[in-house]
């Protein structure tokens, strides 16, 4: 079952990547990142079944970080929205020199 | 005099003082009031100059090795130390730097009108950097100072320069930095090679001196070092940053650039390039290449100079021509050639520095540097014209001036090594007249027609104070170069011995790669004390 879980995680990760690449709504892109994180979590869990409980610990940490990230990220999106009145990332190109 | 200097322990602290005092001065200038910045900077540079004069007596002309040596570990794990010393090559460079800085600062009193504090602070920073380059005997330290000099000059050109100052400043920076980086790579290679032999990391000059390298390695490292120094000198195809930098730089910037910064390249040839890579430096192809580039510099830039409409650009090109003699003299690898090269360096520092100052004075008066805008001003500015004439004659090497001594010795040394090269280079005396005299004529002679020229003021007292010592030096060195030559001689001998002797050593260690031979004597029997280095045909040794 390990291989299947890993393949599943790979597919989920790829879907998340694809979503991040093609979506322009910042919140959805954020969701895609969460999806990628979960894909990774899945593989951690799968590995932990065989290699020890530490894998689950990492998932725990990842979740915590994801929570923090969500809080900050969403706060950023809110303040950006206040400024630009949109969450479409095509409008955020200040990085371009 | 010597006992007086000894009594104050002059030799103990002088190099450190010369190195760091300008930096202290820089801080003082930055903290002081804007209106007094120039006076403060000038007085400070005078103090440095005054201190440096003691070297003239304190320096022992009988010794060819380093003097006033002192070394303090700095970054011990890399073998970097703060090591400074002086020998016959750097002695005059240091004194020239102190002199030029003082003169340039005095010469910029009227020229620099904005951000005075910053400007004079940068000038003093430059002095520290340049003196550091000349007295460092730790390669790491040397490299640090070498790069430090870039910064003030970059800002001096970029902030106080003419119309195209940004372009010129960037060009100057990029050219020099490009070469420096290659040098850094080569330096690190050398460092690791030395470490592999001795087992201890060290950037000390002596430690890197006798690293046994194959000819192949030497040629590559030589190339990297040589490129860095050639750009600085500058040697022919790398010279185009110079006219631009000179034309755009403010007068004091040009003066320091011509008088001192260019010398860093030639100094690098003498101090590092030749002793480090003796086999490469004596490789016939290398010597021929460098000499040909030197000759192209002499003749070609003289031609280019002759048709410049801008007087300052003309003088800038003549710098390249003069430095061609230096390159020629150095690569001749004869006592005469090296001494001549050094004399040309000193003389060029004084005469071209003075020329730039004079052109700056012209610019202050008329706000133009175009030769065509002048004419006949010898009538309204006779003293100015006199000073210019003497300086110009020094520049073209009239006997009795310092220019001649250097050029003649350099040519003589070259002739001993490569007669044909020397003969071609001799035509430089004609072309020197060809570029300088028409300019002098168009500016100072001919009819005084333009009304704005008729009210040009003659030299002021301050300008007289600037030019007086310079003109006096030109003639003094021209008439009595003996004291200068005497102080250089042992060092020059040591360099040549190091190069020729070591070339053999390096070869002896790598006989399978002994592609070239430099002496008809056997390499193994003759380590070190070989004085003559007559290049013979390849294959003599096999």
């Amino acid at each position, binding site marked *: 079952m390990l291989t299947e879980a890993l393949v599943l995680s790979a597919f989920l990760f790829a879907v998340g990547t694809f979503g*991040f690449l093609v979506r322009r709504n910042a919140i959805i892109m954020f969701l895609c990142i969460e999806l990628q994180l979960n894909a990774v979590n899945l593989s951690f869990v799968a590995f932990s079944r065989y290699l020890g409980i530490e894998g689950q610990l990492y998932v725990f940490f990842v979740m915590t970080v994801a929570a923090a990230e969500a809080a900050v990220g969403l706060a950023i999106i809110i303040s950006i929205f206040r400024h630009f009145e949109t969450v479409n990332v095509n409008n955020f190109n200040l990085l371009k020199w | 005099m010597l006992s007086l200097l000894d009594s104050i322990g002059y030799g103990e602290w002088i190099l450190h003082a010369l190195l760091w005092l300008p930096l202290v001065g820089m801080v003082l200038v930055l903290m002081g009031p804007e209106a007094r910045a120039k006076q403060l900077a000038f007085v400070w540079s005078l103090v440095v100059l005054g201190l440096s004069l003691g070297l003239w007596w304190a320096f022992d002309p009988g010794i060819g090795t380093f003097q006033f040596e002192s070394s303090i570990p700095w970054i011990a794990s890399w073998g970097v130390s703060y090591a400074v010393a002086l020998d016959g090559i750097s002695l005059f460079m240091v004194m020239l730097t102190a002199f030029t800085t003082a003169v340039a600062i005095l010469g910029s009193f009227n020229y620099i009108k904005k951000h005075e504090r910053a400007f004079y602070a940068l000038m003093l920073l430059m002095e520290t950097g340049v003196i550091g380059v000349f007295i460092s005997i730790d390669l790491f330290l040397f490299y640090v100072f070498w790069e430090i000099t870039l910064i003030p000059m970059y800002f001096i050109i970029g902030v106080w320069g003419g119309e195209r100052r940004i372009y010129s400043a960037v060009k100057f920076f990029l050219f020099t930095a490009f070469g420096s980086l290659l040098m850094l790579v080569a330096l690190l290679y050398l460092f690791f090679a030395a470490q592999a032999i001795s087992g201890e990391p060290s950037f000390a000059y002596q430690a890197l001196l006798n690293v046994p390298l194959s000819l192949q390695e030497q040629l590559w490292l030589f190339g990297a070092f040589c490129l860095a120094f050639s750009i600085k000198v500058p040697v022919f195809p790398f010279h185009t940053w110079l006219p631009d930098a000179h034309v755009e730089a403010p007068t004091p910037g040009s003066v320091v650039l011509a008088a001192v910064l260019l010398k860093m390249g030639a100094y690098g040839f003498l101090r590092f390039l030749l002793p480090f890579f003796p086999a490469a430096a004596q490789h016939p192809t290398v010597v021929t290449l460098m000499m040909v580039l030197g000759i192209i510099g002499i003749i070609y830039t003289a031609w280019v100079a002759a048709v410049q409409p801008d007087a300052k650009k003309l003088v800038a090109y003549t710098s390249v021509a003069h430095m061609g003699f230096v390159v020629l003299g150095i690569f001749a690898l004869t*006592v005469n050639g090296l001494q001549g090269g050094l004399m040309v360096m000193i003389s060029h520092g004084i005469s071209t520095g003075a020329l730039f100052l004079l052109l700056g004075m012209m610019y202050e008066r008329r706000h133009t540097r175009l030769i065509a805008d002048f004419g006949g001003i010898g009538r309204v500015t006779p003293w100015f014209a006199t000073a210019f004439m003497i300086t110009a004659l020094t520049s073209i090497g009239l006997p009795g001036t310092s220019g001649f001594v250097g050029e003649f010795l350099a040519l003589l040394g070259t002739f001993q090594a490569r007669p044909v090269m020397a003969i071609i280079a001799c035509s430089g005396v004609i072309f020197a007249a060809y570029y300088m005299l028409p300019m002098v004529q168009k500016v100072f002679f*001919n009819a005084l027609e333009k009304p704005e020229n008729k009210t040009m003021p003659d030299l002021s007292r301050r300008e007289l104070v600037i030019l007086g010592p310079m003109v006096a030096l030109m003639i003094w060195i021209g008439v009595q170069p003996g004291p200068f030559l005497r102080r250089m001689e042992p060092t020059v001998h040591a360099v040549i011995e190091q190069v020729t002797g070591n070339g053999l050593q390096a070869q002896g260690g790598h006989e399978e790669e002994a592609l070239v031979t430099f002496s008809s004597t056997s390499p193994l029997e003759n380590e070190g004390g070989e004085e003559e280095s007559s290049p013979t045909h390849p294959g003599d040794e096999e």
Partner: protein
Amino acid sequence: MTLPLVYSALQEGHEILAAHEVAGEAFEPFLPGLVILLPLLGFILNGALALAASRRSADALRGGAELDFFEGGKRPWTHSLPTWIGPGVIGLAFLIVLVNFTRMLGADLHEPVIRHYWTWMSTGAFQVDAALQLDQLSMVMMLVVTGVSFIIHVFSVGYMGEDQGYPRYFSYLNLFVFFMLTLVMGASFLLMFVGWEGVGFCSYILIGYWFTDKAKADSGKKAFIVNRIGDLGFLVAMLLLFAGFGAFAGFGTLNFVGVFAAAPDALVYGGGVVTAITLLLLLGATGKSAQIPLYVWLPDAMAGPTPVSALIHAATMVTAGVYMVARTSVLFALAPVGGLTVALIGATTALFAATIGLAQNDIKKVLAYSTISQLGFMFIGVGVGAYAAGIFHLMTHAVFKGLLFLGAGAVIHSMHHALHHTHNDADPQDMRNMGGLRKFLPITWITMWLATLAIAGIWPFAGFFSKDEIIWMAGARAGGVSGGWYTLIWIMALAAAMITAVYMTRLMIMTFHGKNRTGQEEARHLHESPWVMTVPLMVLAFFSIFGGWINVPHAISDSFLGGFGLLPMTEWLHEWLHPIAGVATEIQAANAGAFVDRAPFGGGELLWAVLSTGAALIVVLVSARVVGGFKILPAGESPEPVGFKKVLFMKYYVDEFYDRIIVQPLIRASRFSWKVIDAGIVDGVANGLGNLARALGWFGSLFQTGSVNTYALFLAIGVLVILGVVAF
């Protein structure tokens, strides 16, 4: 540092090489350093005055007014002191030279006396001292230089008296004498070179003395640059002498004594190296002494004040080449090709310049070409190995050509005043505007005729003896090696001598005889010069007559031409210079045969002397008649010359030729170097590299869209690539 210098000069240095005592008294020089230092002192003093005066005049000019220093008939101190300082220092130097000369006369001197002052340049392998060499040759030259200089300085007091730059003029002139004395007294090639270039520089500033005139400034510049071409030869010759080439290892010294002592053994007779050295030295000599191909600067040099022309461009500086060949006689004797080339160039120049002199109308131009031609004679002399004869002609020429120039100066001075008074803008130097001046300038007229007879080679004037001896010696070598060439030289010299008589007579007739062409009003303002100018003329005239009697061969002095030995004629100079030229003469005699005592087509010395003076006299008389018969119009009304006369008038178009094949191509090459190579290729490559970097940067910036998706895509691609690399 100057003080110790002066001190050491007064201390008389110390002798390196003591005089060889053979018999008689040893030569003890008297303050030789002072001979050089005095003119330098004069330069410094006059220079200071000049700086002070020029500052005043510049201040006035800036205020909008020309300052006249002589306003109200008063001379400011800056313009009165040079009258005493300028000629004074030279006079003193001349006195010291005279003392030394008498001492040397009384001594028995076989080796040069060297006075060492300080070491000038010294590297490990090379040393040159600031040292003076006193021997017979330098003594003769010192006499000529200081003597003629003194006379001309005195003349200048009158000629330049009204010039605003009076102190500047004297400072330059003093400086020139300083360098000229360095040239002739220096004990090594390098020191000679110092003087060599120094006089070139002085010539430059003196030709361009009136520097606000572009033509004059141009002439000065031309003189300097052409001279430098010659200097190149000298320089390379020195390098060769010191370091050698090929099998010849060099002398390792540039001291005359050392080089000449070693030369006969070190150099192969007729070898390539010595020939090269002599030819290079010859190149230097042709530059300084205005010989083909580098003579072109001298006619233009007439732009300078006339006393300058007399001093520098007739009497002293231009003879430096002759002096140099005589000084290096040992080398030239060792290189027969070098010597022959010297003589051939001399002969060609003598003939060539003489023909140009026939068609010139400017009085100074005629004299300039005459000078070139006479220098050619000297070159023949030293070239064929008759060094004493060459030096002899140098001396007599210094006297009579100096006189001719000063006379011309007096004429011009007078013409200038006359034309100035009447506001006539005619050329005061054009002989077509003169005519009949003998009434107004009697002293000038007589003295100049004496000089003319001297230069034409008529017995018993100075030029007769010197020129005749040169021609004779050229002929006397026709019997030996390369006889054909020497015969040719002999014939060319004879022809040139005859043409000399023609153009000089033409000059005198056009200037002093015939109808006055200055105009009525102007003629009333023509008058003889003040005594300060005429006395020098008379002094020189005296020597023009009797100066030649110091070197008369016995064949002549014992004949009727020498009053059967009754006239005070001696062969003194020849014997005097023997220690200098002796070695060379021996080498020449040993290898190429001695001089034969007969002309190429037979006949002895006396016969040819009589023939030549007779011919010269006839030529003078005939051309006086012919030129007197011409109808000469003032310059403004004269037609343009046509035909061959135009070619002569245009000086064979040599200047134009040089301009076409050297000057213009050089300027074009320079422009090409600048615009195409430097700004185009070299800088283009550098800027191109910069632009390449910039283009790469621009290309890279295309990926910086600012859109998160794009960055993420690249990130993903990167991950993919890395994964791919790790995986496969």
